[in-house]
């Protein structure tokens, strides 16, 4: 199935109504559902939260758009609830964290491989190795705090080994900014990628910022504090690759297209029929939003939406293990650092980052402490120590 954005009108906004029963459906099974079903849930939840965040900011700056924004936002809110409530209550916050990092690794790796702009692909590979390391640190915490095996969540799709060490990821703010794509010349897929990954990282930041203090253990509290800080850096990075000269309505249209693209990708690959029905419903909703915003775009900007988004959606985002690509990236780019917006070797890293890092780590490093001597083993490291 290919989706033509401008011909598929989806469900009109006035017919997008939901009940509390629609929103609160039986959750997935932590044990029996496919890990990539959970990946899709977390990813689309991030997109819905980003939709709300963006549309609120847009409303603060555009009086004329406040009513249309409020109408679309009401639906996005209920879509977000429906999706996020699919995570079952037997996921501990730390198990959900492992799933968030699996999203970051596998979706960023997929994006990095299909991104046509070489510089942007490099940006994604750079961020990928950092989230990959977070997965390793949180897996050590899950093992040593809760006595659980992170692979129960990962289902053997994603490796648990060190990436670019989290202790080295702390950079001066000016070294987290990147060059942005050009709104006039960038491929549609580049725009969709950027919004997708920014949304995923933003929700990861917010999740860690909220659940960090729910832990009693001081090491867990410190680790969440440390990695939340990196996720904030990642939001800074991914936000900066988006052309800031895009108009508010242009950005809104790209947001809606991004949601369409991701639900389309979910529909194409979902293995759980009950969840697939939700993706299909929300794909139709998002097509409705896209059509609605397209009309606003024409009305206010007197431009054709096809100037900024291609008519046919790109191939779906592949939701699959990227083990070989991640390992290759790890072997080739683990020592990459930044200087301003450019990627450099470790030896050329900007001094401001070194100074900042030296200070922030001077009271100890939670990411190093938690993973001291840690090597993942099936069934937890106690399998090795006891044997």
């Amino acid at each position, binding site marked *: 199935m290919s989706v033509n954005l401008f011909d598929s009108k989806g469900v009109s906004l006035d017919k997008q109504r939901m009940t509390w029963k629609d929103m609160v459906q039986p959750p997935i099974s932590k044990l029996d559902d496919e890990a990539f079903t959970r990946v899709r849930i977390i990813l689309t939840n991030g997109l819905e939260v980003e939709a709300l965040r963006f549309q609120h900011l847009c409303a603060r700056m555009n009086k004329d758009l406040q009513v249309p924004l409020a109408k679309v936002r009401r639906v996005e809110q209920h879509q977000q609830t429906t999706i996020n409530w699919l995570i079952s209550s037997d996921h501990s916050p730390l198990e959900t964290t492992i799933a968030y990092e699996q999203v970051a690794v596998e979706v960023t790796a997929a994006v990095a491989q299909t991104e046509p702009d070489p510089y942007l692909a490099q940006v994604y590979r750079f961020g990928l190795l950092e989230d990959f390391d977070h997965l390793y640190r949180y897996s050590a915490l899950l093992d040593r705090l809760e006595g659980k095996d992170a692979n129960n969540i990962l*289902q053997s799709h994603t490796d648990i*080994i060190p990436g670019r060490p989290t202790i080295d990821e702390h950079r001066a703010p000016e070294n987290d900014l990147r060059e942005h794509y050009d709104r006039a010349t960038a491929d549609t897929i580049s725009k969709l990628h950027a919004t997708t990954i920014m949304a995923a990282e933003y929700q990861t930041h917010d999740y860690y910022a909220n659940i960090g203090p729910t832990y009693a253990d001081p090491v867990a509290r410190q680790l969440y504090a440390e990695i939340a800080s990196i996720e904030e850096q990642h939001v800074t990075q991914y936000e900066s690759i988006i052309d800031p000269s895009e108009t508010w309505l242009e950005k809104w249209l790209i947001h809606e297209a991004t949601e369409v693209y991701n639900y389309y990708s979910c529909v194409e690959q979902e293995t759980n029929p009950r969840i697939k029905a939700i993706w299909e419903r929300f794909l139709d909703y998002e097509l409705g939003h896209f059509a609605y915003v397209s009309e606003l775009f024409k009305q206010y900007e007197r431009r054709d939406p096809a100037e900024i988004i291609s008519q046919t959606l790109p191939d779906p985002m592949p939701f699959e293990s990227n*083990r070989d690509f991640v390992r290759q990236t790890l072997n080739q780019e683990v020592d990459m650092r930044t200087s301003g917006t450019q990627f450099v070797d470790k030896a050329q890293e900007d001094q401001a980052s070194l100074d900042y890092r030296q200070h922030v780590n001077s009271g*100890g490093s939670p990411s190093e402490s938690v993973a*001291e*001597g840690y090597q993942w083993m099936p069934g937890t490291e106690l399998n090795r120590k006891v044997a």
Partner: protein
Amino acid sequence: MNQPVEMSMRNRTGIDRSPADSQKMIDAANAYMPSSKGNGSALMDMESGYIQEAEPVGTVAIPGTLKGAAQATIQMLAGRNAEVLVDKLGERLAFERTGTRLYDYFINKCETMHCEAPISIDTLKRFRHEEAQHFRLVANALETLGADSTSQTPGADVSAVASSGVLQVLSDPRTSVDQSLEVMLNAELVDNAGWDLLVKLADEMGLEDMAKDFQVALNEEDEHLMEIRQWYEQCTLKQAGAI
């Protein structure tokens, strides 16, 4: 509606589900060294540092105005640490109050699932009623000490954190009656030990009337524990085809 535990190919959590991929993970874990050496003791070292600096979770509220009867009771405790008794009473009160809610959830699950013998809904309803009575009994005991029975004590707070998983399991529509029975047993074991301690505490502190009342409650709790434990065992054995 949920069914007894079954075996299927759907469970995806273990390494046997994807042997080839799992082997790649194992090989990678062995090939890539940890970024820091050590045996994980840094985690406990950091914990120790925080333990040394930590403040307690909270304090026991000072009684407001001590009226005649309370003054007389407090005088009986001269030389003893009344705050320990108040803390433990507060803990039991909170546990019984939540315990009543646990029974509400469990009864509803059993009724919805049309539970049969050995489980008895009537017996469960009696236990629920007794939990609520025990809550009032402890509230009265606190009031005789001049303590505020609506105040949350540190023991109540910590105990609620410890048992929060029990409520999560019972209120989850997906959990079976057998799984619910296991967490009910968990709660009743702790509850029984709590009442046993309260009887001893009241007795040793010279509060004979209170100790007698608590002994009656303990006797009822003994029955709760015995029944729940038996049901749990029988249901599991039955499901396993052992009886």
